[in-house]
Structures are given as C-alpha cells and as structure tokens.
C-alpha cells in the first residue's frame, strides 16, 4: 500500500520518493521541498540486499531495498501479517510493533534503521501459543470488532503496561491515541487495559432489560412484546415442519448471554488473515493509473513503456464498450475511452511481480488528457452554465420494459429529480397552520475509511475463478463477476475469512475488482489489488453531502399539520444523495411532501453508508422538533410522545413507537432530563447542555439466507454458509444459535462462513444479517436434530418426539434418566455424518410495522470562546429484537455512537474547488474520532419479541448510528442557545453561529 500522491500529477508517493533517493530517514524530511524537482518518473532502485533483523527473539534475514519500511519487511518477507497497514504514513497505528520494548510505527520506520534493536510483533507478544494477559483481556472484554486495528492496539497497550503497570484512565487513553479504530471499540479497549493491569475497569455500562416469562409460548403462538412494556403470546401460523419459537431469553441457556467472540484469539494474535494479508504462490501485484483531472477526455493511453519493464506481466486499459452509442455524440467527442468525471477515476492498470514494479510500471503508462472545466461544489453545480457532469437527458423511447412506466425524473443541468413523496395538501396546511418552524441544514461528505481498504486477490484458473475479497457480501461479488465475465456462478468461488470494516461501501466486486480479475485472466496468475488509502478515500464511496430546507407546521395543541422537505445532495458522479424517509415517516402527519434532488458534481461516487440518508434526515428533523417544542412551550420529550402515536387516544401499537416511548422515559431518568436548564441559560464561557436524538430503521429480510449444519458421528458439529462476519460477531452469533438448539456450548461448533462454496448467506449490510440467517440456522438444526433423535430414540427405546438436546446431552423429556451424552448420542448415527441444508423460512405473518425504535441522549460541553465542543456522555436506549449476544451488540452500539460523533464533530472530506482533488485523502488530514474524544457511553438494551421468526433476531448496525448527530446538535443548542445547523460542528461553525446571534 503506497502511492498516496499518485493522483497528483507532480506528486510522489513516499515510498517512490524513498526509492529515488535510496532511502534513509533524512529523505523523509526533504520530501516536500523536493516534490516538484523529483516529478520525473523514477527508476526503481534494485538495491535489494540481505539485512539481519532480530524479530520475536530470533535473528531473521530479509532481502529488502533500502527504502523498504519495517512494515513491508515484516509482512512481505517474513509473512508476519499481524502488523497491519492502514494508512502507511504514521496516522493510524495499525502497524504498531515494539522496538526494544517501545511502541513504534513500522510504516514510518525503515527496515535498515532498525539496526540491532529487538523487534517484537503481535505474533511474538506471547510466544508458545499462550495469550498475553492483555490479549486475554481483549478477548474477554470484546475489545475488537473487525479486528483489523486490534494487533496495533494491543501492541500500543502492551508497551504502556510494560512501562506503567498500573496506568490511570487518562494514561490509557493517551497510549491508544495514536491507534484508530474505525469500528469504535475504544471503550472496551480501555476496559481491557484496566483489567489486564489488575485494576477496576472504567465501566461502560450495559444494562439488558429482559422480559420475565421463560417458558416456551403455547403451541401455535409466539411471544410479542418488549421489556418494560406488555408481553403476550399471539397466534401465529407456524408450519408443522418448522422449528418452533423459543422461550424468551431468560429461559435459554446460550442465546441472550454475553459471549466472547469465538474468533477473538485469532484477532488478538494477528493470526486472522485479511484479504490484504494474502500471499499466493506466483501472485502478481496490481496498481491502477488514475486521472489527476476531475473532468477530461482521455485522448491517448500508451502502455508500451510499462510493458517493456521487466517483471510486468499484464496491462489493462479502460475502454468504452465496443459499439456503445453515446447519449450525445456532439458533446462527447466519441473516443476510445470513457470520459473522466472525477479525479481518481481509473484509466488503466498494470500487474507485475512486485508492488514496487507495479507502481513504477503504473508511472510509465502515458495518458494524454484534454482537460475540461469541472464542477465540484453542490451550489456551483446547480448554477446556470455550470459544467455538465453528464451530457443530458437519456432518450427514453420505446416501452418501459414490460410494465411500470418509467418515472420520468427531470434532469436540468446537473440537477436530477426530485424524487417525491406527497400525501395531503401541504400548501394548504402550511398556509393555515397555527405555527411553523423551519430551517436550513447542511451536512458534509463523510468517507467510510474502514481500517482495511478495499482489496481483492483474483486467481483466474483454467477451471474456475477464485477470488479473495474484502467484502460485505461474498455472493454479491460472485453475482457481479459472473455477469461481467459471463461465467457460471458455479465456477466462481469468493472467499472472505476476515475483513477490516466496510460500513456499506464493500458490496459487489467494484471497478477495481473487475480490473484485478481481468489482469489475472491476462497474466494467467493470481493478482492482488489492494487500494491505498487515497484511492479508498476518493473512489469507492462516501456518505453524500446534503442541504435540506425543512418546514414543520403544527396546530395549537402541537399536533403536526404538515411537513415539507426539499433536499439537495451530491454523491459526486453517482446518485443516492437523499436524506431517506425520516421526515416522511417518523411521525404520522396529515400532509407531507418531500422533494429530494441529486446534484451531480465531478467527485468520486457516493455509496451506501450506515443507514443511508437517515442520520442526515434525522439531524434536521430532530432539531426542528425541538424548535417546535420551544415554540409551543412544551417539553421536547412530551412533544415527541404526543407525536409518536398510531392508535386512538394518543397511544402506540407499532413496535418501534412502543419502544421509543419507553426508551425516552428510561433515558430521561438516566440523563437527568428533569434538571435540564433552559436553552443557553448557563452562565460563563463554558456551557453544558443535553439533547435527544431519535432513531428509526427498517427490518429488512433477505431470503437469500441459507446454511448447512453437519453433525458427525464423533460429535463434532459444523455450520457452513457464505454469509461473512463484517466484525459484528456473526460467526459467534451463529454458533450460539446452533449451540442453543443442540444443547452444546458455542465453542463446540465449528463455524465456516465467508465462502460461496457453501449455501448462500445474506450480505452483511442494512442490519439484515441476523434477521436473515439465524432462522435458517435454527431450521437446519431442527432438521438435523430430527434425524439424530430418530437414531437416539431407537437406541434409548423412547419416542424420538420426546427427546430434547440440553446441557450437552440428549434426553427424554418424560424420563430424563434416559439420556445419552452428546458424543454418545452422535455415535448412534448409522452413517458417518448427518447433514441438513435449510433456507430461511418465511416470516410468520406481517406486523403493522417492521421498524426499529431507539433513542439517544447526549450531554455536551461547549467552549463559547474557542467554539470547541466536547461530547461528555451519550446514553442510548435501543431494542433490536431478541438479543442473541449482548456483548457484541454492546460493541456495535458503541461503534455506531462513535461513528455518529465523529461525523457530527470532525469528519469532512475536502475537495479542492479548482482541481476537484481530495485534499485530505489520508487519516492524518481526514480527522476521525480517536481515543481521547470518546465520551462516557451507557447502553440500555430492551429485549424485544415480534413473533415473526423462530429467533426474532434483528440487526443493530444502522439504528445505533442514526440519532447521534441529532442528539449532539440538540445538546449544543441547549448549551449555548444558538442552533448549529451545519456539520461538522467545528469551532469555525460554532463561532460563526454564535457570531450570527451576536453572542461573541
């Protein structure tokens, strides 16, 4: 991973520069000064020489060029891939190792600098297969999600403990402050360090509120209700051959109990292999050639010089599809190559025997551009005469393709839309309303920034295509590659054992993925293409920016009369920059109108990002609801209770509304809402405030959810599915569900997931993974158990129908004395193995709503002299169906909140308005929340049953992220009495808002 500056025509990557200067620490210091002078293509220095390194207690010889960093020497030469590369420039800590016991960044240390210092990597922290006390504490405290940052985090903390055996909390945070965790696992990391040092953990409270009944529901019914609310057995049509509903969680042995993740040990030891860690025999390395211009016509691409470079095995030039007719040939000047629409768009690619050669070959590809004027800002793109990103309307002649008339969305210049929703007469309601509140809200572009960048290893073989991908959906990658390369799906294997975060951006193969496969096909060898941090930042997705005008109208009693939303957003050259359905659906309103526009700009495309559109929409809506409450002189929580209804008498029946009404009250007590001061009433320059944010999400069911369960005669049990674990703990949750039904412990289940050779599983996204896959697991368990019980029943002389699996044995319910321990029960199988493949059963009917609730309260401190906001506390109340593993849910909710605060206060992708290039395309300049910024977080989980499936499990990734920025914004208003309607809420925006109201 390198070449952070490749997109800059006169720039150099750090590694290439070091190569040109034959390396040396001093070279780093003159990088900026010599940048322009060194603009000519560089020669690779072939000065690879043997170097002795003392690594993990042994002397190892590596053969590296002087410019090789320690990270590359460890990873590429010694295959010690526990040392990760997240940024390759000293900004993320993923590469942390110890040099003579002191934490050091291996990406900014040259291998030749190490000398005779002792290098310790994560693999050497606790040799002999044992875990260091800190590693064990990480596992026990669930101090990891995707695990990509974990080795670096462990190494930083281990160095701290070696020096300071009993650190205080502030010291722990300081020690982790150079390590970024995009999954937001910091609270658990802090606790793990305290526990490992024999101290009381800081304490990040998780309160699980269960529902009392522990019995199975009566036949033909399922439990419906929520902790703290009413619970009843409701009639359901449950097919005879399906697994029956479980009791509520207190009646279960495994499910609902906090369980450390089964792959924790692999993650804390660096043994977990990510796509970027793979090294296949004969593997080539690919680099892309990307446009430095935001808008251009490619006139010529010449790969000749690159192809002459020894070690280059394949090149690829992106061309127009043969025979493609352009929508407007007069403006497009038909050529061989697609038009360039953003700086960073791929033009060509090369594959070579080493990364350095690939990088050099990419530099040798000559590209001639005709540069065109670009449009890079939302407002600028909407102006008359702005350069057009796309040439104009598509010719929509002919039929609409078999029904469903094409919705002829208007496109004027770069403005596309609106996508509209309308109910009732909004204009009349606004005109006649007793009161109105309105505001303009602005949110910024946020990049996904997973710690593992997008990457793929493609191996085109004569008989099949094998692909290792950092993806959220193995089957989604297979789907695309099958279509693009016209291959049967049966001839494609996509694998993903571990992946370092995605957050919505890693669906499908991606442009880079197709390029890698094509290079592999041409070179007849495996090809690895892992994007560098700049490429990840620029080209593979982001949360689009938005500009919303929102108006709420109310009657005198505070009932909503109308909602009117106009939203503009830009997903660069892509679509989907809307703000979702918060305004239209959160509160029933007689007249609603939403008009949402995409504005095309010459910037990298957006992508789905944790609850697409919803945090943006809620940022506006929740603030205006507070404004309305102020105008009505009612408490904001009371107003929300009044609005969050769906039944006569101001009550609620839909599960999400029932949940939110409970959650607001719990949160109010915990945050001390009754003591909340009037907005802006505190004296002095440093002011505190509290505010509320609201969550909503949709329960999504993906029926492409299947699994296989195998039980062997020796008692071993396997579960297989192509579903992968994005870091949420899916692997462990599946083991827990199966263990529950087989009467085993989760660690007795071997879970094999992330491979399309196994039954199809859902992609991990949209909070739909467990909703889809867990009922399939139970169904497969049900079927395999029926076979097992038939054999055991015969052996015990009891009716198989009376058997149950519990506590590690199979026993007769009527005569518990008649039993076999699990292993002996399995020995009764006539064949060597039993297996069942099950697809997800259908839901047992449809409820009136399948949404999520969720409420968050934030407490902030605002320095009105500097404009700095600190989030002190977030209390979140959330339901997400039946809780499978509260420990992992807790981690995911912490992560959602931390993502939300990071978006609210820090993150902001900056484009140079002239060139359209991203100015902060790495983690040193793109600020994300770090260890020192983490507030106190308290989580209350309400166990909930909706009686729809045999598990009633839901996901949690999305709902936990939706309300945070709104809660912070409302808390800021409560603190300073001035609305900050723009994200990120930086000191600049805060001071501007204060100035606008004459408060500074």
């Amino acid at each position, binding site marked *: 991973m390198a070449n952070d500056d490749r997109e800059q025509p006169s720039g150099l990557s750090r590694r290439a520069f070091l190569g040109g200067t034959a390396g040396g620490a001093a070279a780093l210091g003159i990088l900026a000064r010599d940048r322009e002078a060194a603009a000519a293509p560089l020669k690779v220095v072939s000065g690879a020489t043997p170097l002795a390194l003392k690594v993990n207690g042994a002397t190892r010889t590596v053969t590296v060029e002087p410019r090789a960093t320690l990270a590359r020497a460890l990873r590429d030469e010694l295959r010690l891939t526990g040392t990760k590369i997240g940024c390759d420039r000293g900004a993320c800590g993923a590469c942390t190792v110890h040099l003579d016991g002191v934490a050091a960044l291996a990406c900014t240390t040259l291998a030749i600098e190490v000398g005779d210092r002792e290098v310790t990597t994560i693999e050497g922290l606790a040799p002999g297969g044992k875990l260091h006390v800190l590693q064990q504490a990480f596992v026990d405290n669930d101090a990891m999600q995707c695990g990509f940052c974990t080795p670096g985090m462990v190494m930083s903390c281990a160095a701290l403990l070696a020096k300071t055996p009993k650190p205080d909390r502030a010291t722990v945070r300081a020690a982790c402050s150079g390590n970024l965790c995009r999954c937001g696992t910091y609270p658990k990391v802090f606790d793990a360090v305290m526990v490992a040092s024999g101290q009381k953990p800081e304490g990040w409270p998780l309160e699980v509120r269960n529902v009392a009944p522990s019995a199975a529901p009566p036949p033909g019914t399922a439990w419906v209700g929520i902790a703290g609310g009413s619970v009843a057995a409701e009639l359901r049509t449950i097919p005879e051959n399906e697994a029956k509903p479980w009791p509520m969680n207190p009646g279960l042995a495994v499910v609902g109990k906090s369980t450390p993740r089964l792959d924790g040990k692999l993650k804390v030891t660096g043994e977990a292999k990510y796509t970027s860690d793979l090294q296949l025999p004969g593997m080539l390395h690919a680099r892309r050639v990307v446009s430095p211009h935001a808008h251009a016509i490619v006139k010529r691409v010449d790969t000749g010089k690159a192809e002459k470079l020894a070690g280059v095995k394949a090149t690829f030039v992106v061309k127009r599809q043969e025979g493609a007719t352009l929508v407007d040939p007069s403006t497009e000047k038909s050529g061989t190559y697609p038009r360039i629409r953003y700086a960073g768009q791929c033009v060509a690619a090369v594959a070579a025997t080493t990364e350095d050669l690939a990088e050099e070959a990419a530099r040798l590809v000559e590209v001639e551009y005709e540069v065109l004027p670009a449009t890079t800002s939302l407002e600028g793109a909407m102006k008359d005469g702005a350069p057009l990103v796309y040439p104009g309307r598509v010719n929509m002649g002919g039929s609409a*393709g078999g029904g469903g008339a094409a919705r002829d969305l208007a496109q004027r210049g770069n403005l596309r839309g609106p996508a509209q929703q309308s109910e009732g007469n909004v204009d009349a309601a606004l005109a006649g309303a007793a009161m109105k509140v309105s505001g303009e809200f602005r949110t910024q572009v946020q990049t996904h920034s997973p710690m593992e960048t997008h990457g793929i290893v493609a191996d085109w073989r004569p008989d099949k295509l094998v692909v290792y991908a950092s993806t959220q959906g193995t089957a989604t990658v297979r789907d695309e590659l099958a279509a693009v390369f016209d291959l049967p799906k049966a001839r494609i294997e996509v694998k993903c054992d571990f992946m370092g975060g995605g957050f919505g951006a890693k669906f499908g193969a991606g442009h880079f993925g197709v390029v890698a496969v094509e290079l592999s096909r041409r070179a007849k060898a495996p090809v690895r293409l892992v994007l560098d941090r700049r490429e990840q930042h620029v080209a593979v997705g982001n949360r689009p920016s938005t500009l919303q005008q929102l108006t709420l109208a109310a009657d005198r009693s505070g009932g909503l009369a109308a909602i009117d939303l106009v939203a503009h957003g830009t997903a660069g050259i892509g679509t989907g920059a809307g703000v979702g359905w918060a305004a239209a659906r959160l509160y029933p309103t007689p007249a609603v109108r939403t008009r949402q526009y995409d504005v095309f700009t010459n910037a990298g495309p957006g992508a789905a990002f944790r609850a697409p559109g919803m945090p943006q929409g809620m940022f506006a809506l929740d603030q205006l609801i507070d404004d309305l409450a102020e105008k009505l002189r009612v408490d904001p929580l009371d107003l929300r209770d009044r609005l969050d209804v769906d039944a006569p008498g101001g009550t609620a029946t839909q599960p999400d509304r029932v949940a939110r009404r409970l959650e607001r009250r719990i949160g109010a007590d915990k945050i001390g809402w009754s003591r909340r001061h009037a907005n802006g009433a505190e004296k002095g320059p440093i002011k505190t405030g509290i505010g509320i944010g609201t969550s909503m999400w949709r329960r999504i069911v993906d029926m492409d959810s299947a699994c296989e369960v195998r039980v062997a005669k020796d008692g071993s049990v396997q579960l297989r599915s192509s579903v992968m674990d994005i870091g949420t703990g899916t692997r462990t949750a599946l083991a827990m569900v199966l263990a529950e039904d087989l009467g085993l412990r989760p660690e007795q289940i071997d879970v094999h997931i992330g491979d399309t050779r196994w039954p199809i599983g859902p992609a991990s996204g949209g909070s739909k993974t467990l909703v889809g896959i867990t009922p399939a697991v139970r169904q497969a368990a049900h079927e395999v158990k029926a076979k097992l019980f038939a054999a055991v029943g015969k052996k015990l002389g009891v009716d198989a129908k009376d058997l149950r699996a519990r506590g590690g044995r199979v026993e007769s319910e009527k005569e518990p004395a008649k039993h076999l321990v699990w292993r002996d029960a399995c020995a009764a199988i006539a064949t060597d193995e039993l297996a069942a493949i099950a697809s997800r059963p259908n839901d047992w009917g449809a409820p009136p709503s399948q949404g999520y609730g969720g409420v968050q309260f934030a407490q902030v401190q605002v320095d009105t002299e500097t404009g700095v906001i600190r989030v002190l506390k977030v209390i979140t109340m959330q339901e997400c169906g039946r809780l499978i593993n509260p420990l992992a849910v807790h981690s995911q909710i912490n992560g959602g909140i931390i993502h939300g605060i990071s978006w609210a206060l820090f993150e902001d992708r900056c484009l140079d308005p002239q060139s359209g290039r991203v100015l902060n395309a790495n983690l040193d300049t793109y600020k994300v929340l770090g260890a020192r910024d983490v507030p106190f977080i308290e989580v209350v989980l309400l166990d909930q049953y909706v009686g729809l499936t045999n598990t009633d499990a839901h996901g949690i990734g999305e709902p936990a992220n939706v309300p945070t920025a709104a809660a912070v914004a409302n808390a800021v208003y409560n603190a300073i009495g001035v609305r900050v309607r723009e994200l990120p809420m930086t000191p600049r925006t805060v001071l501007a808002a204060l100035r606008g109201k004459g408060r500074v």
Partner: protein
Amino acid sequence: MSETTHHRPRVELPVLCKWLRCKSAFGAVEDDTGWREGTSSTEAYWCLATMEPFGPDDDHAHATVCRDGRRCYRP
C-alpha cells in the same frame, strides 16, 4: 433501501437493464421495490458494463433510466 415500500399495494415493477446494480439489488429482499422503481432517494446505482455510476453511453445509471429505450439497454 426504499422509503416508499412500507405497506404499499404491489405495483407492476419495471424491467430494468440487466447491467444495473445497487446495494439493494443483491439478495432476495422482500417488499423492497423502491430500488427497482427508482423512487428511493438514497440508492447509489452503478452499471456492470462500466463498473461506474454511468453506462456505456456515458449517461448516469439509475432505475428510472436504465430501461428499454436507452441505447445501451440490455434485457
């Protein structure tokens, strides 16, 4: 993901170009027609023929336009 698919009467869905993709296009998600109709405001589309958010004809990819009648449409 669609904001318009909650409990609406079923509508006849358009046949889209076989190259059109978005996140919601994957899997077998019930009652999620917004991406096909093109009514979702948050759907990021791309084209498999280019692997970019634009089609081979150089115009943008979207469910409202990747239909029969477009020059690069493939049934």
